[in-house]
């Protein structure tokens, strides 16, 4: 299986390493024709405004939307924002996932954090998943076709259970960065979506 990694900007190299470790081929995508023949696509962490502007300039917006209609696509952090319908700001979005995100929801870099999540859909679900949140977005609203995969319990009481991972058919959004951990279970989960076995 060959998975593309959108390489306009961000930590695409880390995703490529994790995909290879999980047993897939990885190919960098910077132009529309490079989507040809891929079984799925990852949109990495980075700056969502930068990725959106470059995608617009190089004619990737419509090809990416078409690709997302037919294949598995996973966005991490900036990638999740890019997949969303609404980021409450004027910036280019693919709008293929029926979610609303709040950018920089936790504050600035000094508020970035690491924590552990329980993710029942992964292999060995009893083992917590180490999640790295860097200037991370939150998913504020998930439409009726969207499954919530993980929430963050908040003891400081901003209303518990904020959404940090969601799936809509074969589209996947996470606020955190599985590519920065040594744990490839999330990438393996994505490969099951891309292979159609875990699909909608």
């Amino acid at each position: 299986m060959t998975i593309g990694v959108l390489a306009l900007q961000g930590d695409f190299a880390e995703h490529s390493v994790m995909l290879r470790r999980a047993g897939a081929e990885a190919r960098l995508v910077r132009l529309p024709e490079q989507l040809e023949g891929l079984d799925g696509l990852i949109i990495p962490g980075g700056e969502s405004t930068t990725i959106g502007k470059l995608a617009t300039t190089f004619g990737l917006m419509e090809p990416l939307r078409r690709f997302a209609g037919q294949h598995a696509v996973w966005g991490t952090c900036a990638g999740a924002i890019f997949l969303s319908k609404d980021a409450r700001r004027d910036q280019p979005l693919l709008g293929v996932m029926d979610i609303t995100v709040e950018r920089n929801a936790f504050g600035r870099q000094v508020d970035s954090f690491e924590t552990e999540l329980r993710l029942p859909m992964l292999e060995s679900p009893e083992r917590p998943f180490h999640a790295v949140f860097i200037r991370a977005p939150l998913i504020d609203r998930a439409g009726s076709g969207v499954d919530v995969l993980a929430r963050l319990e908040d003891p400081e009481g901003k209303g518990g259970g904020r959404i940090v991972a969601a799936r809509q058919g074969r589209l996947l959004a996470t606020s955190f960065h599985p590519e920065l951990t040594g744990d490839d279970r999330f990438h393996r989960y994505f490969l099951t979506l891309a292979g159609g076995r875990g699909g909608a």
Partner: protein
Amino acid sequence: MQKEVGTFALKAGLAEMLKGGVIMDVVTPEHARIAEQAGAVAVMALERVPADIRAAGGVARMSDPALILEIMESVTIPVMAKCRIGHFVEAQVLEALGVDYIDESEVLTPADEAHHIDKRPFRVPFVCGCRNLGEALRRVGEGAAMIRTKGEAGTGDVVEAVRHARAVLGDIRRLQTMPDEELMAFAKDIGAPYELVIQTRELGRLPVVNFAAGGIATPADAALMMQLGVDGVFVGSGIFKSGDPARRAKAIVEATTHYNDPKIVAEVSKGLGQAMVGIGVTQLAEGERLAVRGW
């Protein structure tokens, strides 16, 4: 929920998110918005760009906190700010303001000629300049979570940026072919922590993200640095000292992404107007060189 903050993974992780991008010097909120619109991954908030610091002379210090806060409020991308080498109180102030990254920078007048800041206790990450592998690893040893080659800021002359990138990347290549018994002597020669030398050898790259800085003025300059093997670029005076900053900024962003595609670099380089006039580095007196500040 157990939360860990201020870890090295989070500091280095933000730099990972900036890779393949352009960080631009800005001196007003208006500049910051132009930079964000052009696709910058972050901005460096300053009172003066390096070319003007050079022209003004005198002591260059941390910028006015009021200006930094105004710039932080005007954009959604990360905001960096500079403190003087060794001036850990300026760094504490910048951390208190909530900037996303601190550049302990040779562009400002050093506050300490012998010691850089111990960056480990800070919750905010630091980027530091280097001219060679030893200097890079000393900074990482002090807790820097990102490195940039120094180049020669405020000149618009890319020659020093190239020299420093080749020095760092060349030493890493040499390190990888070195027999084990030579590693300790190599660490001693370059004045770098041994453990970091070993780690760099194993990774085949610096243990943190490595950008280029100091003299990048055109899309082709940015693509040149990327092809040499850096992870991204800082552009200081090169944008807002040029004829059409918005267009040039966008073109440099596009050339940084498509650095391996000369047709795209050619296309985006068309009709950008006057580049910054610049100063040849060879015309600088020894005392005017910023890169020699720090050790």
